[in-house]
């Protein structure tokens, strides 16, 4: 029998998927979610009342898993919880790569019956060295192959970010919000109660996965903390790992117990774990998205000195506040830079000290580009930050014109040329609709953009700390 890791790899890259126990009452959510699967999809259902519904989806149904005439790489189990032991044995007999158990009503229910049932299925799986994902989870998402757990998830385009999530909601949200920010998933897994396979196993797998360059984790608790400690330390050496720990207060810990039966543990020790292993800590979905985006689309951050380009005087003050509050410095520029500015920069009501107040230079695209170019070349600067003010663009009627597209083109071009890390802050103001359009264009060009000075500064802090630690190893 092939080893467990190889079978897990089959499940993450399946050629065949079986959905066991999907039904009308669930809206055939699993069969529908898999409708774009590029391999062979099968249904297993014994209730004949469900046959017409399954047939109408154009999916072949079998009464037993063993009746399916080919090897099954990945199975989704949605049968009632009392039936799960038998179905897991069927999966073992069929040599399925891995099965994810959507069914809930196990340890997370807090009942003795639920706990016993979880112990039973875990024992069956462990005895056979079988890859059981869950229970109480949404399982695998592989967009490239169209393996999904929600019809809302995109399919076709794969990426290089893996996500390991103890929660199905966060796995789904990350997969939906990610692409809006230029983050595409290689594979993700929602693993629920972790009765057999735990975060550590997936981390090890993604650590070795050639498609995956960055790993995100949403975690509530862990069964074997020592093993996570040593695995995380190893994986974080060669791939950035961003960790969002759920359940940090007393009340939050009560929530994790009933959500995934997890012992949330002491927040101070989790913080220590993340620091010691060289991973990056985030506290919510948006920090996770922002940090991942920066890791993906900006060059490594070399230090704490930022060159700030704001569109107006007021913004030049608060952009500086936001970045210095996160421990960055906005130093004066070199003599050479000031000489370059003096040659073209309109200083009436504007300033090029650092922060830059572009003001009346704005209508001239070449001046904006020249300004950030000077920042990018200045020896005192590690990261260039550009404010893109949508209200300002709107006032000038640049939005939806060639002028604006030309500007994005020029900024994208600068990003490629610039040898330093470069980020933009997209200030929406009242122009929220227009800001969405602008964001789409920036994302399409892989230009990292953030919704506020504060969120940009926070993400830059996390990533700068990551690179600083890495370079001093």
């Amino acid at each position: 029998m092939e080893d467990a890791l190889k079978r897990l790899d089959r499940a993450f890259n399946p050629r065949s998927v079986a959905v066991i126990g999907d039904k009308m009452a669930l809206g055939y959510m699993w069969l529908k979610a898999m409708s774009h699967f590029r391999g062979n999809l099968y249904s297993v259902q014994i209730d004949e009342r469900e046959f017409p519904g399954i047939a109408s989806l154009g999916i072949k149904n079998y009464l037993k898993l063993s009746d399916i005439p080919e090897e099954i790489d990945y199975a989704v189990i949605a049968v009632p919880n009392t039936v799960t032991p038998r179905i897991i044995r069927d999966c073992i007999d069929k040599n399925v790569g891995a099965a994810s158990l959507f069914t809930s009503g196990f340890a997370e229910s807090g009942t003795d019956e639920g706990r016993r049932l979880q112990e039973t299925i875990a024992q069956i799986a462990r005895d056979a060295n079988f890859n059981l994902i869950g229970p109480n989870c949404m399982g695998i998402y592989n967009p490239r192959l169209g393996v999904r757990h929600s019809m809302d998830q995109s399919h076709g385009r794969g990426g290089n970010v893996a996500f390991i999530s103890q929660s199905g909601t966060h796995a789904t949200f990350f997969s939906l919000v990610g692409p809006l920010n230029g983050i595409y998933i290689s594979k993700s897994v929602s693993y629920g109660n972790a009765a057999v396979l735990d975060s550590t196993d997936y981390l090890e797998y993604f650590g070795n996965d050639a498609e995956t360059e960055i790993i995100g984790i949403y975690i509530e608790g862990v069964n074997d903390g020592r093993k996570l400690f040593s695995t995380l330390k190893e994986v974080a050496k060669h791939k950035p790992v961003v960790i969002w720990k759920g359940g940090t207060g007393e009340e939050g810990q009560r929530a994790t117990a009933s959500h995934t039966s997890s012992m949330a543990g002491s927040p101070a020790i989790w913080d220590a774990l993340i620091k010691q292993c060289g991973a990056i800590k985030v506290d919510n979905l948006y920090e996770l998205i922002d940090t991942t985006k920066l890791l993906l689309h900006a060059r490594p951050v070399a230090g704490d000195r930022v060159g700030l380009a704001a569109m107006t005087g007021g913004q030049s003050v608060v952009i500086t506040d936001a970045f210095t509050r996160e421990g960055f410095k906005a130093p004066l520029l070199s003599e050479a830079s000031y000489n370059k500015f003096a040659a073209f920069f309109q200083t009436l009501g504007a300033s090029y000290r650092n922060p830059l107040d572009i003001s009346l230079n704005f209508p001239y695209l070449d001046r904006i580009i020249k300004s950030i170019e000077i920042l990018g070349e200045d020896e005192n600067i590690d990261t260039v930050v550009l404010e893109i003010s949508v209200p300002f663009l709107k006032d000038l009627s640049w939005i939806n014109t060639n002028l604006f597209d030309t500007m994005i083109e020029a900024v994208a071009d600068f990003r490629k040329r610039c040898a330093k890390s470069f980020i933009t802050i997209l200030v929406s103001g009242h122009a929220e609709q227009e800001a969405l359009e602008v964001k789409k264009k920036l994302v399409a060009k892989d230009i990292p953009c953030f919704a506020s000075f504060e969120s940009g500064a926070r993400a830059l802090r996390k990533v700068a700390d990551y690179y600083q630690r890495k370079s001093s190893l």
Partner: protein
Amino acid sequence: MTSNKIISTASKEGRTALTEIEAKKILTEAGIACTEIKLATTAKEAAATAKKMGFPVVLKIVSQDILHKTDVGGVKLNLNNEDEVGKAFDEIMKSAKKHKPKAKIDGVSVQPMAKPGIEVIIGMSKDQQFGPVLMFGLGGILVEVLKDVSFRIVPLTKRDARDMIKEIKGYPILQGYRGHDPANIELLEDILLKVSEFVEKQPEIKELDINPIFAYKDGALALDARIILES
């Protein structure tokens, strides 16, 4: 090895708490400098030991049943002559018996009074998920009120030790504050690493507290230590 012997003796006797004398022997063997400590069972013996050590000295109650020595009036500081030592011995025994009549008392320890330094503490406890974890903080009010402490999971690397010291808010105090002597940070790192290495080798130890350690410009000295074994 001294520590193995102490630990096996204690567990044979059904004890989980080690005395300060035992704890310091173990730490000394692990390479951590502790104040000299001698057991005295009579006032006369205490006075003679103190004279040999040199004044001023400290007397502390030694009992496996008394973990918080000051709470029972079991500590007397800054004793400058044999008379004071003898008197302190009697007072400690009397007070301890009054507060804890059932406690088995070995005697009183005599220790030289350490010169003042920056007070730091190092502790080890076991986390249910992550096993042994070290804590570092400044002693006294900073740890008690402000909870200004940092944690790392065992085993520590040199970098972890350095980071956990730098991480506390009181770090500038260790760097030397307003003309006060700085602490030797490298030496503190070294103590953390030694504790990490030692607790990894001795899984029988459930909890450990070195509180306080006096940190000096050119040294560091453990003044008190508490070790609890797994039951």
